[in-house]
């Protein structure tokens, strides 16, 4: 079975070039090809981004070198990069899982915020009495965050499954609502000192950091990496297991590849839609907990610089593979870390957009094999 790529319709191919490009549908994709196209796409995106930067009056090489140096240049900044990567791992997994079933959860940001809020509530309401040891406080915060994120994620899941409501719009609206919800608590009941922040959590609600071990291992002093990274890595293993080793995962992939076939096979699409959205939301909620408990030790208005949105790209760059999400999250953690110093501030978002574009454009190479043929005289 061969098909011409629409870009080369017969009417258009008769330009006077000495060669033509023929596109054939691929029946099988070689294992190395997705990795190669991803790397190629990122490289092309960086070149395009560089050209735009040069036009905007910047020095692209200097900017890229600066990004690399200020994110991987030393143990200290590498640690900071991993701190930024942690919420991206969790939200990236949230997106990857939902996207695998072709559920467009663009609401990881809102689910993260709700998770951060619930984890804070455990300490600030308080749900566990002050002075409760970490070994109890932290798991309770994690569960609270997952429940809040999961419930918030289940809303678009239920609306889509039961009423067929477009989940993209619902998750986006819920993002705005969650941001306002956080605003209310940090300006209102939990406000401290007029700034949009809550009081600091007691130390038993802090995720341990590598620097906590500095007395025993001096090399760890000043390293901000916290337990959230480990939580993220464990989550990646669990999501991988869920997707590729469990019945639910099989059904998720089946629905994602062919909803019609899944329905004929008797898969409960309604139930799976709600379950997957809830798990996705729970993962994002955990990211929120990891931020309040591992990084800032309080809830604040600016708890996320858009991790939930970058997660969309992280998931896509990883081709929805959970381990790939970890790698991509670290790369984007670096971009976010370095991006704070880059002016104008829109550059990181712009580069993210170009990378995502380049990635989805490159997928045409996975669907088609292109041959350049000499034109017969």
């Amino acid at each position, binding site marked *: 079975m061969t098909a011409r790529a*629409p870009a080369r319709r017969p009417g258009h191919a008769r330009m006077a070039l000495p060669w033509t490009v023929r596109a054939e549908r691929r029946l099988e994709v070689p294992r190395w090809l997705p990795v190669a196209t991803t790397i190629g796409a990122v490289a092309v995106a960086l070149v395009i981004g560089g050209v735009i930067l040069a036009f905007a009056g910047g020095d692209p090489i200097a900017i890229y070198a600066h990004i690399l140096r200020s994110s991987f240049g030393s143990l200290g900044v590498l640690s900071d990069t991993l701190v930024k990567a942690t919420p991206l791992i969790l939200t990236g997994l949230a997106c990857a899982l939902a996207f695998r079933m072709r559920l467009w959860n663009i609401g990881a940001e809102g689910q993260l915020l709700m998770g951060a809020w619930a984890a804070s509530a455990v300490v600030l309401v308080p749900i566990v009495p002050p002075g409760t040891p970490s070994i109890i406080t932290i798991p309770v915060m994690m569960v609270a965050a997952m429940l809040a994120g999961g419930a918030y994620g289940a809303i678009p899941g239920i*609306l889509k499954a039961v009423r067929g*409501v477009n989940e993209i719009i619902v998750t986006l*609206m819920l993002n705005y609502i969650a941001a306002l919800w956080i605003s209310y608590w940090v300006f209102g009941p939990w406000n401290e000192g007029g700034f949009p922040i809550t009081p600091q959590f007691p130390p038993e609600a802090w995720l341990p950091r590598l620097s906590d071990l500095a007395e025993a291992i001096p090399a760890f002093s000043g390293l901000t990496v916290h337990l959230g990274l480990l939580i993220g890595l464990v989550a990646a293993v669990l999501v991988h297991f869920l997707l590729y080793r469990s019945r639910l995962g099989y059904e998720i992939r089946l629905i994602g590849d062919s909803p019609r076939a899944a329905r004929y096979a008797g898969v409960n699409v309604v139930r799976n839609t709600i379950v997957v959205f809830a798990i996705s939301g729970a993962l994002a909620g955990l990211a929120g907990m990891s931020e309040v408990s591992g990084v800032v030790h309080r809830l604040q208005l600016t708890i996320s610089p858009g991790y939930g949105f970058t997660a969309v790209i992280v998931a896509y760059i990883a081709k929805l593979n959970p381990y790939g999400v970890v790698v991509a999250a670290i790369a984007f953690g670096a971009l976010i870390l370095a991006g704070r110093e880059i002016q104008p501030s829109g*550059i*990181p978002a712009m580069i993210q957009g170009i990378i*995502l574009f380049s990635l989805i454009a490159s*997928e045409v190479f996975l669907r088609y094999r292109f041959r350049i043929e000499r034109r017969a005289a």
Partner: protein
Amino acid sequence: MDPTIILAAGVAAGTVYLFAAVGEIFAERAGVINLGVEGMMLMGAVVAFGTAVGTGNPWLGLVLGMLAGGLLAALHAIITISFQAEQVVSGLALTFLGSGLARVLGEDLSKAGATALLPTATIPGLSAVPVIGPIFFTNQSVLVYVGFLLVPATWYWINRTRPGLHLRAIGESPTAADTLGVDVYRLRYAYVIIGGVFAGLGGATITLAISPGWFSDLTTGGAGWIAIAIVIFARWNPLWAAVGAYAFAAIRRMIIDLQGPETLFGFPNPFFEDHTLTFFLQMLPYVLVIIVLVVVSGEALRKRVGAPAALGIPYVRGERGA
């Protein structure tokens, strides 16, 4: 809390949503979802405002803003129509790219302040009509009147003309349209780009007419996403899109006005007493969008009047499809 002021402001601000929604209706009627409306609007907004500040000519800004929106949309068209990529993801990429690029371009514009506005006009005669006149025809931006003309024109184009028939055909059944000699690819390209031009116009309407100035990516404040929701609410009909756009903007305005008075209906105004409660008021428009979508969605309704049948599906000649 004067209803006339609220409704007049709703018509003015609703024009922004209206332009973007009409553009999205064109693209989606042709079978292509473009979720990049927010990015295209931001680009339209920044290019229009930047041009107006730089040249002192808001009309030139308007035109270039529309072109900027169309240019971004062309990228979406290439990726989704020629490369047959996932339309949802491409649209998201467009949002990232558009808002990032707009912030880069608008770096120095936030200090520029309000400038060279497009003129407002009062329509003689019509403005004297009771109720209608003060709301629709008094001191509105010229772009608001463009919106009034655009709605019936779009409806007529889609439903009563031959090109409109082709538009509906490529969105409902591209294979059949192709068989009858309609150039599916070319038309889809055209309508996606037209959609971008209208989104750019929507963005330019913000910075040049409705709330002038450049406030980074807060300029649009999610208007692009609201516009997409309005398209679903309107069931791809421009007349209903106008209703949705004006009504939504009026509700937004009412929420702002609710925070002002000391008493509401004789009771102390809780939003005046405790300003943190206004965050809940601000949630209302978003809650409302969700509620409206829940009401208009649902299987029964979708079967009667629904999305174009081939919406979101890339057309590949010679392959089985919608």
